[in-house]
C-alpha cells in the first residue's frame, strides 16, 4: 500500500504575520481535512485515545470526518472536550495523542511528522461546530437544577467545569479576579496562537448555557471561601491557576526592563500594550531582546517580542537562551519551528548568571556560562552542567524570564482548612478532585503544578462529575 502524504496545514507566511498578531496556523479546509483523516489507520486498539488527557474518541471522530459527518465528529469530541476549537489550537499534541499514534516510532521524544495531525482535525471539527452553532444544548434531565455552584477562576479548568455543570442545569457563577475572563487563555497565550474571537465565542456559549461570570472579584480577598457557602453555593470548584513567576535568583535581576514572561505577556495580551498609546499600558522594546527558558511560555514571549520589534521599526533581534539543547526543550515543536521562521534566534546550553545595567538602572548585558549535558535528572532529561571559566557577556536591552510558575497562595493562605503540599499546591483526592474541605473541589495548575490546557480540563471534568454526585447525594 502506497504511503499517503502528510497534509501540511496552511499558515500565514512568516514575513506577513511577523508584523501583526493575526493567527499563524490557518487550519485545514474541507479537502485537506478529508485527506488527512483518510491517512488514519483506524487501529483496532487506538493508542492515541490513551494519549489524550481527556480520552477523546479520536478514532471515531476522524472516521466521521472521512464520511463527511463533520457534525458527528464535532459532537464526538464534545463528549469529552468542551472546547475543541481552543484545544485544537493550543494542545501540545506531539507530546500527547500524536506521540501515542502508531505512526510515531516507539520511544520517540515527541510525535514524528508522519503521525496523524489529530489536533488540526480536532480544530477543523471544532470550528465547523462553532460556525454551525452546534454547541451541545442543555441536557434534558436537570437533576441538579436547584443547586448553585461557584467556580473560582475563569481559566481552562474553571471554564470547563462551569460548562460541564451548566449542561446539567446547575446554576454556575464564575468568579474571576481580573477584569476579563479566560485566565491564561487570555493573559498568557497570544492571539496569534488563539484568536480572541475563538475564546470569546466559547465564553459566550457558556453564558448562553446560563453561566454567570463575575469579574474583578478575588475569592480570598473580597469574599472568603466559607462565605460562598453562606451565600447559598452548595459546592465550589477552585481553578486558581499557577501564580507566582519564578526568577533566576541571580545578581541584577531586578534591573529595569527585565520582565517575567507573565508580566511581558500580560501587558501585551491582556492589557493590549502593543497598541500603546491607544491602550494606556506601556511596554518597553529594545534592540537586543533575550528570552530565558525553553517552554511554550518562552516561545510565546519570544514571538511576541519579535513582533513588537518589527511593529516598532526595530530589526528583529530576539534570542532564546536555554540551558539544555533543542531536543530537551519542553515547548511544542510547532512553536519552535514558527519562532525560527519568524527570525527568533536560539542559543543552547546557556546558563545566565548575572545582569549588568547602566546608571539609570536599565539592563545592558547578560552574563552567561556555557553548559554541557550530563546524565539524566529526575525529569529524565540530561542535566545541564556549567563549564568552568566559560563566562561571557552578551548585550541585552530587554530580558524576559520564562522559567515557570509557583502556586498562587492568595486563597490558600487565608483558608488554613484547605490542605496544600510542599509546593503549596492544593491537595485533592485523585479520583474526585475533592480538597480537604467537603464540597470544595480543585483542578488545573493549582493542583498539578504547571500543566497543559487539556490536562486542566481533564481534571475539571473529573471534578464536575464528582460535584454532580455530591449534589445528588445532598438532594436525598
Amino acid at each position, binding site marked *: 500500500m502506497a504511503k499517503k502524504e502528510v497534509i501540511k496545514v496552511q499558515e500565514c507566511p512568516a514575513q506577513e504575520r511577523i508584523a501583526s498578531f493575526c493567527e499563524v496556523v490557518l487550519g485545514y479546509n474541507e479537502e485537506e481535512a478529508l485527506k488527512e483523516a483518510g491517512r488514519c489507520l483506524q487501529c483496532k486498539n487506538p493508542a492515541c485515545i490513551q494519549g489524550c488527557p481527556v480520552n477523546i474518541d479520536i478514532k471515531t471522530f476522524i472516521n466521521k470526518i472521512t464520511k463527511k459527518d463533520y457534525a458527528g465528529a464535532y459532537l464526538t469530541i464534545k463528549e469529552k472536550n468542551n472546547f475543541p476549537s481552543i484545544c485544537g489550537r493550543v494542545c501540545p499534541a506531539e507530546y500527547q495523542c500524536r506521540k501515542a499514534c502508531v505512526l510515531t516510532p516507539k520511544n520517540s521524544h515527541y510525535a514524528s511528522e508522519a503521525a496523524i495531525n489529530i489536533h488540526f482535525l480536532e480544530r477543523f471539527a471544532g470550528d465547523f461546530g462553532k460556525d454551525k452553532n452546534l454547541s451541545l444544548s442543555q441536557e434534558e434531565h436537570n437533576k441538579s437544577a436547584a443547586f448553585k455552584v461557584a467556580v473560582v477562576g475563569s481559566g481552562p479548568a474553571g471554564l470547563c467545569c462551569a460548562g460541564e455543570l451548566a449542561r446539567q442545569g446547575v446554576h454556575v457563577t464564575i468568579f474571576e479576579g*481580573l477584569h476579563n475572563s479566560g485566565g491564561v487563555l487570555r493573559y498568557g497565550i497570544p492571539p496569534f496562537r488563539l484568536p480572541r474571537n475563538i475564546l470569546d465565542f466559547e465564553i459566550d456559549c457558556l453564558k448562553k448555557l446560563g453561566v454567570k461570570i463575575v469579574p474583578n472579584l478575588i475569592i480570598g480577598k473580597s469574599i472568603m471561601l466559607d462565605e460562598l457557602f453562606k451565600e447559598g453555593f452548595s459546592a465550589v470548584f477552585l481553578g486558581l491557576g499557577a501564580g507566582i513567576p519564578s526568577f533566576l535568583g541571580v545578581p541584577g535581576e531586578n534591573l529595569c526592563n527585565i520582565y517575567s514572561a507573565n508580566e511581558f505577556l500580560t501587558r501585551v495580551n491582556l492589557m493590549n500594550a502593543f497598541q500603546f498609546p491607544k491602550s494606556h499600558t506601556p511596554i518597553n522594546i529594545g534592540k537586543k531582546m533575550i528570552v530565558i527558558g525553553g517552554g511554550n511560555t518562552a516561545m510565546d514571549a519570544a514571538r511576541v517580542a519579535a513582533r513588537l520589534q518589527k511593529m516598532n521599526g526595530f530589526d528583529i533581534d530576539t534570542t532564546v537562551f536555554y540551558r539544555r539543547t533543542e531536543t530537551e526543550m519542553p515547548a511544542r515543536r510547532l512553536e519552535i519551528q514558527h519562532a525560527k521562521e519568524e527570525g527568533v534566534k536560539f542559543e543552547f546550553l546557556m546558563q545566565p548568571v548575572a545582569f549588568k545595567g547602566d546608571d539609570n538602572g536599565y539592563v545592558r548585558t547578560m552574563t552567561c556560562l556555557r553548559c554541557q549535558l550530563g546524565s539524566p535528572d529526575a525529569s529524565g532529561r540530561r542535566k545541564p552542567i556549567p563549564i568552568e571559566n566559560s563566562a561571557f557577556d552578551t548585550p541585552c536591552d530587554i530580558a524576559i524570564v520564562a522559567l515557570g510558575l509557583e502556586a498562587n497562595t492568595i486563597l490558600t493562605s487565608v483558608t488554613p482548612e484547605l490542605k496544600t503540599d510542599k509546593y503549596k499546591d492544593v491537595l485533592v483526592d485523585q479520583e474526585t478532585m475533592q480538597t480537604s474541605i467537603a464540597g470544595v473541589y480543585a483542578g488545573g495548575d493549582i493542583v498539578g503544578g504547571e500543566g497543559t490546557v487539556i490536562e486542566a480540563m481533564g481534571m475539571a471534568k473529573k471534578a464536575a462529575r464528582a460535584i454532580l454526585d455530591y449534589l445528588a447525594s445532598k438532594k436525598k
Partner: protein
Amino acid sequence: MKILDKKILTDVAGTRVVEMKILAPEIAAKASAGTFIVLMASPEGERIPLTIVEADRQKGIITLIFQEIGFSTKFLGTLNAGDSLFAIVGPLGHPTEIKNYGKVILIGGGVGIAEIYPVALALKKAGNHVTTIIGSRTKDLLILEQELKNTSDAFFVATDDGSYGRKGFTIDILNDLLSKNTYDIVYAVGPIPMMKRAAAVTQNFNVKTLVSLNALMIDATGMCGCCRVSVGGKVKFTCVDGPEFDAHGVDWQELEKRNKIYCEKEKHICNLTIKNG
C-alpha cells in the same frame, strides 16, 4: 464601581489632588488600614493601585485620594460623580498590623498623607499615643490636616517653602522628636526620597519603621512580578508580600529606578494627549 462624589482637595499650578468616593460594597466590607485597590478608569486604561483611605461598610463606599501625577491618574481625574470605573478590585495586600505599640510616629508626605490617615485612625483606636507629621512643598498642597490633627496626640506640619508650619522637611521634625523622646515605631508614606530619608533617620535611633511602597503593578495578585522590590536582600512582591515593608531593609535605589521604567512612554502619551486637547 460608580463614582458617587468627587472633590478637588488641592489645585496648585495644575497639580491636583482628587478625592473620589466609589460604590464598592464587597471591597468596603473587607477593607482595613493599609490595604489597596487596583482600578481601571476605562477599558483601555492601565491597572493602577491606590490605597483605600476610608471604607464605609454600611453604605458600601470607599474613599480614594490620588494626585494627578501621570497620564492614568490625570485620566482618572477627568471622571466625575455619576461616571463608573471600568474595573475595581480589592482589597489587596496585607493590612497594617494594628496593635498597641505604645508611642508611634506617622509621617505623611504629599499625597502619602492620605495613606497614613486610615493607619492613624486604627492605631489611635488601638490605644497608641499617636504623633503625626505631615509635609508638602507648599501650604496649599496639604490635605487632611484637620482630620489627622483630630486623630493625633501630637501634630506637626512642615512645608518646603515655609508657607505653613515649620520651614523644611518632615524628616527634620522626625529627627528632633527622636532626639528628645523614645518612640516604639515609625510609619512613613510619601515620595521615595522622603521614605528613604526617614529610614536613614530612624535607623540612627534604632526605631522599627514601616513604609508602604508604591511599586508599579498590573494584576496585583502576585502573577506578574512587576512590583518586585528587594527587602533585606530578598526579592518580594509589593502586591502580595506588602505593600508594607521594614524600611531599613528596602533597596531604595532599585525601587526609585524601577518606578521610572516607563518615564519615556509617559512623556509620549502625555504629549499626545495635550496635542490632541
